[in-house]
């Protein structure tokens, strides 16, 4: 019997070019991470970041513990005539609040004045129903019948929410409805939300997001070049373009878990100490997830940019990176405020697209945010909280989910662009 001639050896499909690249990728990434671990600067930068976040968390806990005291918006907890009954109670019983001789009789005991603070809260049900609000304390129903429908919607003692294209544009109240809401709670909530957004943008995107790559990624190739050890890495059967990518991978392997850890810590603290009746504010996790996605992509983009700077001009790489950081800082401020943001200049920065990710998640997670803004405006609290400074309407489209994807894609494209520039420069670099 004739044996068939042995053909070329069958190649295991699992052992293709990709597998081998992957081996080299893990080798370089692993090496890069071990190198970071051995450097003192890594630890200094990391610990400073942790201290910074901890400090901010302590400030947050303190602010939340103090809280914002409630005020009596309609002044009905005050006993004008000194007969022992707060004005609100007298008004409800139809007695005259300015006449000490006229007070509810027949076994009615005077209320504690504090009962007449926050006695008529906002009863917004979160839907687009125009008919909102209840007269919790009954002082609207105590009015003359013709006085009960000031907003003219045909429903007595309610609040009319006016919607246009899904946006709340106006709130018109009947008299004495929702007139004394729990502003302490409202403002605490507002401060909490502002804090999350502001901290996410400034603390994570900007301060940590820019400085950690600045210190740790600028030298990914440059430091090796200056230390005279680069030839060990590039003198191997592996393209220089890949060396750069895998070095970046090593940086990401360190930076992403670091950010994840810090953001998780922040989510724990703000979740437990934040306002609300529940033990933990699970609803905020979406925001923190957005902050993590935003910082992860921002850090990746900055790392690619700074590493490229280090390759293109080893001598002035750090200077260039600092100038760039300054540019980002200015752009961050521009993107903070609606007026300057919509000029469009800020779109030429990484921080802008990072903060758009956070803005978009805020829209998705806190769907009542726009209404809170309107309510605050209605109640005259706009100046009290910085809520409006860190929270912006969607950009560039009106759909937050679309904006989210646009921002992610822009950041990835920016990263890719700078990696390509870095790879090109690295390819042509002579290693003296």
């Amino acid at each position, binding site marked *: 019997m004739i044996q068939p001639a042995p053909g070329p050896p069958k190649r295991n499909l699992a052992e293709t070019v*990709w597998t081998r690249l992957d*081996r080299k990728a893990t080798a370089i990434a692993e090496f890069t991470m071990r190198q970071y671990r051995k450097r003192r600067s890594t630890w200094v930068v990391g610990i400073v970041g942790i201290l910074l976040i901890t400090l901010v968390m302590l400030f947050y806990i303190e602010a939340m513990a103090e809280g914002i005291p409630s005020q009596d918006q309609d002044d009905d907890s005050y006993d004008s005539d000194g007969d022992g009954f707060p004005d609100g109670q007298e008004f409800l019983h139809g007695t005259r609040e300015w006449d000490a001789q006229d007070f509810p009789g027949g076994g009615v005991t005077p209320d504690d004045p504090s009962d007449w603070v926050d006695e008529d809260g906002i009863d917004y049900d979160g839907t687009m129903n125009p008919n909102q609000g209840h007269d919790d304390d009954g002082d609207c129903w105590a009015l003359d019948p013709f006085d009960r429908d000031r907003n003219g919607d045909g429903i007595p003692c309610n609040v009319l929410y006016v919607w246009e294209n899904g946006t709340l544009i106006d709130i018109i109240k009947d008299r004495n409805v929702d007139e004394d809401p729990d502003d302490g709670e409202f403002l605490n909530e507002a401060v909490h939300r502002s804090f999350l957004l502001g901290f996410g943008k400034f603390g994570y995107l900007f301060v940590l997001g820019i400085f950690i790559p600045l210190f740790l990624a600028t030298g990914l190739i440059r430091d090796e070049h200056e230390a005279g050890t680069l*030839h*060990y890495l590039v003198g191997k059967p592996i393209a220089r373009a890949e060396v750069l990518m895998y070095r970046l991978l090593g940086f990401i392997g360190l930076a992403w878990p670091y950010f994840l850890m810090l953001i998780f810590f922040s989510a724990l603290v703000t979740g437990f100490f934040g306002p609300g009746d529940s033990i933990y504010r699970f609803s905020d996790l979406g925001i923190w997830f957005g902050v993590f996605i935003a910082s992860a992509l921002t850090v990746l983009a900055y790392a690619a940019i700074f590493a490229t700077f280090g390759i293109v001009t080893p001598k002035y790489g750090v200077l260039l990176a600092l100038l760039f950081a300054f540019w980002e800082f200015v752009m961050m401020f521009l993107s903070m405020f609606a007026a300057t943001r919509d000029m469009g200049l800020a779109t030429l920065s990484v921080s802008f697209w990072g903060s758009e990710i956070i803005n978009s998640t805020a829209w998705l997670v806190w769907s009542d945010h726009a209404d809170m803004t309107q309510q605050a405006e209605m109640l005259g609290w706009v100046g009290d909280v910085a809520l409006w400074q860190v929270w912006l309407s969607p950009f560039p489209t009106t759909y937050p989910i679309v904006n989210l994807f646009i921002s992610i894609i822009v950041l990835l494209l920016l990263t890719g662009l700078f990696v390509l520039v870095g790879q090109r420069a690295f390819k*042509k670099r*002579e290693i003296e």
Partner: protein
Amino acid sequence: MMPDIHQVGEGQQMPSAPVVPGTPAIMLDHVSKWYGEVIGLNDVSLAISGGVTGVLGMNGAGKSTLLKIIVGRLMPSQGQIRLFGTDPFKNPAPYHRLGYVSESEKLYDWMTGLDFVTTLARLHGMTRDEARERALHVLEFVGLTDVCNKEIGKYSKGMRQRVKIAHALVNDPDLIVLDEPLQGCDPLARTTIMNVVRELGAMGKTVLVTSHILSEIERITEQIVILHNGRLLALGNLHAIRELLDHVPHRILLRTDNARTLGRHFLPHPDVYGVRFPDEGELIIETNNLSGVHQDLPAIIVRSGALVTAIENPDDNLESLLGYLMEGRA
């Protein structure tokens, strides 16, 4: 396309560089390199394949530049370089078959020797297991097994040189390029490294080794390339070049208790054309035929009855070799 996460077991070693039979390992075609105004390498053409080749030259002669161009660290300003038929600056594929020991002292001092060699072996596409196995093997080959788990920062100079050599051998290369591997080594490390280089040559590898000390190269190989001021000055068998050197004016230095008597006995020799007494107890013989005088040297010393403590050839070094070659050229 399964990613190899575990990195254990056996990986498939596929040479990425095409192996064309008969292609010289190294081929330089009119290669020049300038650093701004300074010329590093001037129109060098060279083909090297098989065996150990020594590159001789003074400091700044262009040895390192030549080697850096060969291993693709530098791009020639003019001319072509082919490493196994491929331009090494544009394509990393020939690195599969190359081991390079740079002249730089810099290493990752925080790594252990074994770590260093293993990590870099993995860049050749080996799995963790393979890399470790190969690393242990080459570390044994260069005699570093005892210290392979110590940090490189704690190594002596000789050990550092050897760990660099080990890293260059880990992929079992066909071509090994060593830049001043003996520099700063103690005699023991020197001997070890020389033996390693000789052994590699005997294994049929192509080895390129630079030095500025003639006697060092002499102990390693006969095949040499001499560089001077960036130019290729000579190329060939060291002994043949030395033969030429024998017939140029040469000096022999003798240390003796009776220089004058000894000098008198040397004067009648047909090849000796002069004697000098530079110092107390020192005699310099000037000759046109070095080997001829060396042949008769013992007999003359015995006849004179003088006590000779040392015989030196002050001209037997790279400088005089270069001097001769330069003049021969002019």
